[in-house]
C-alpha cells in the first residue's frame, strides 16, 4: 500500500507558486531586467551569455533575459484578457441559454454549433486574417473561439442546477429570472467555470504563441514569447537559445496553469481525486 497524503494539495501549492513566480517576474520586470527590452545595440548582435547579457543578446543586440521578463507581461496579459472576456461572455450566454430555454436557447446553441464546427486554431487564424494582425485582434479572435466551449459547459450545468430544489424554491418565492440566474445559479456554477478558465488560460498561452509564431500576433518591437520564438527560429542553427528560451518560458507557464487547473479540479471535485 502506498500512501499519497495531501498529494492534491501539494500539486495546488506547487502550481500556485509557479504562477506566483511568473506574475512576480512580470510585475518586477522593470526592476530586475538588466536592460530595457527594446534597447538596440547592433554591436552586441548575437552576443553570447556574459555578465552584461546573462542569456545573450538577439540579432539587434537586445538583451534576451530582459526581453523574456518583459515578454511575460504581454504574454500573461494577453492570455488574461482572452480568458477573462471569453469566460465572462461564455458564462452569461450559457446561463441565459440554459435557464431561458426555448427560442433563445435554440438560437444560441445553433450559433455555438457553427463556431464549434471549426477547429479552434483554424477559426482564430481566419478571424485574425480577416480583421488584421496584431495582439488586440489575436486576443479578440481567441476570445471568440473560447466562448462556445465555456457557454456549452455553463449551459449544461445550468440545466442541471435549474432542476434542483433551491431553484424551484426561489421560483416559488417569485424572484425574478435574472436574480435566480445570477444570484442563485451562478455561484453554484462558478467552481467548474474557474477550473475550465484556468485550463483555458494554459491553452490561450499556447494559442497566442501559435498565432505569433505564424506572424499574426504582437507587433515589433514589443517583446512577446511567441513572437520571440518565431524570430529566434530563424537563428536556430547557430543561436538556438533565442528560440529555445522563450519556448521553454511558454512551456513553463503552460505547465503552471495546467497544474493549477488539475489542482483546482481535485479540490472542487474530490470524486475524481487521484483519477
Amino acid at each position, binding site marked *: 500500500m*502506498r500512501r*499519497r497524503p495531501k498529494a492534491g494539495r501539494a500539486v495546488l501549492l506547487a502550481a500556485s507558486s509557479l504562477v506566483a513566480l511568473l506574475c512576480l517576474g512580470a510585475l518586477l520586470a522593470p526592476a530586475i531586467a538588466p536592460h530595457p527590452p527594446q534597447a538596440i545595440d547592433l554591436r552586441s548582435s548575437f552576443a553570447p551569455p556574459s555578465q552584461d547579457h546573462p542569456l545573450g543578446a538577439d540579432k539587434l543586440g537586445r538583451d534576451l533575459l530582459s526581453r523574456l521578463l518583459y515578454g511575460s507581461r504581454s504574454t500573461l496579459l494577453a492570455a488574461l484578457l482572452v480568458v477573462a472576456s471569453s469566460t465572462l461572455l461564455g458564462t452569461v450566454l450559457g446561463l441565459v441559454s440554459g435557464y431561458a430555454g426555448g427560442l433563445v436557447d435554440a438560437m444560441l446553441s*445553433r450559433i455555438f*454549433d*457553427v463556431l464549434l*464546427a*471549426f*477547429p*479552434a*486554431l*483554424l477559426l482564430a*487564424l*481566419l*478571424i485574425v*486574417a*480577416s*480583421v*488584421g494582425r496584431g495582439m488586440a485582434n489575436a486576443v479578440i479572435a481567441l476570445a471568440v473561439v473560447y466562448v462556445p466551449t465555456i457557454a456549452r459547459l455553463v449551459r449544461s450545468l445550468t440545466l442541471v442546477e435549474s432542476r434542483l430544489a433551491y431553484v424551484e424554491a426561489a421560483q416559488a418565492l417569485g424572484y425574478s429570472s435574472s436574480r435566480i440566474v445570477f444570484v442563485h445559479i451562478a455561484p453554484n456554477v462558478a467552481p467548474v467555470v474557474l477550473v475550465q478558465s484556468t485550463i483555458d488560460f*494554459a491553452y490561450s498561452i*499556447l494559442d497566442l*504563441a*501559435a498565432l505569433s*509564431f*505564424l*506572424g499574426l500576433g504582437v507587433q515589433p518591437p514589443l517583446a512577446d514569447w511567441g513572437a520571440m*520564438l518565431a524570430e529566434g*527560429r530563424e537563428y*536556430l*542553427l547557430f543561436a*538556438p537559445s533565442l*528560440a*529555445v528560451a522563450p*519556448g521553454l518560458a*511558454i*512551456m513553463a507557464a*503552460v*505547465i503552471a496553469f*495546467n*497544474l493549477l487547473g488539475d489542482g483546482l479540479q481535485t479540490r472542487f471535485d474530490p470524486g*475524481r481525486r*487521484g*483519477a
Partner: protein
Amino acid sequence: MLAYLARRLLQLVPVLLVASFLVFVAARLTPQDPAVVMAGGRQTSTAVLEAIRAKYHLDESVPSQYLRWMAGALLGDLGESYRLKQGVSAMIAARLPVSLQLIAMSVAIALLAAVPLGILAALRKGSWVDILATSLSLAALSSPVFLTGILGILLFSYTLGWLPALGSGRNFAENLRYLLMPSVALALNMLALSMRMTRSGMIEAMRRPYIQTAILKGLPRRTIVLKHALRNALLPLVTITGLQIGFLLSGTVLVEYTFGLGGLGSLLVNAIQTSDYPVVQGLTLFIVSAFLLINLLVDLLYGIIDPRIRQA
C-alpha cells in the same frame, strides 16, 4: 440506422451553409486587394488589374460571388486559386495524402503509446511508472508543437543527422521516415491527453462492480484488464477523439509550416498570408466538413462500442 445517419447528415447542412457564408464574408473583410496581389507586387497597369478582376468575378457583388461559389462547390468545383493558377479542388486533392498520412501516423503513434502507458499507469497507480508517465504527459500537453518541431530538427536532423529535416517522400513507405518527426511532434499533445484519459478511465473502470464480478469469476488478470476494463476505459477516449482530430487538423498548420510539408496546413497558411480567398474558403469548407463528418463518425462509433447508446 440509415434513417438516423440521414437525419444526422441533414443536420450538418445548415451548419455548413452558415459556416461557409461566414468564411466567405470573412475572407472579403481582409484589407488586401486580390487583383493587386495577383499582379505580383510589381508595377502594373489598371487595364491588367481590371482584366484580373473580370476574370475572377471580383467586380461582382459579394452575394453574387457567394452564390457563384456555392453553385460550383455543390458540383465539387471550389474555384481557382488566385495566386497559384490551379483549381482549389485539385490543390486539395494533391495535398490531402500528405496531411492524411501525417494525421494517421500521429493518431497511431498517440494511441499506440497512450493506451498501454495509460493502462500501466492506472494499474500501478502511485508507482514511479505512474508518476513519470503523468509528469511527462503534463510536459507534453504543455509544449507547443512548433517548439518540439524545431527542437526535433535541431537535434535529430541538424546535429545527429538521423532523420530527414524536411519535405515528404515520394510514396507511403518513404513517408514513414520523412513524416516520423513531424507526426511525433504533432502526436505529443494527443498522446498526453489520451494517456490521461486512458489512465483515469482505467482507474474508474477497475473500481466498477463488474470488475469485481469478473474477479469473482476467477478470470486471469489479463482478461479482466483487457476484456472487461479496457473497453469501458476507452469509451471516454472515443468521445474526445473527434475533438482531438480537430486539434490535429489545427496542429498540421503549425507542423507542416515548420517541417516544410506540402499538406493542407501549409496550403492554408500560405493562402491566408497571400490572401488567396478561393483557397482559404475552399479549404476551410473542406476542413470544417471533414471535422463535422469525423465527429459524426465518432458518434456512430461510440454507438457501436456502447450498446446502450446504439439502441437508445
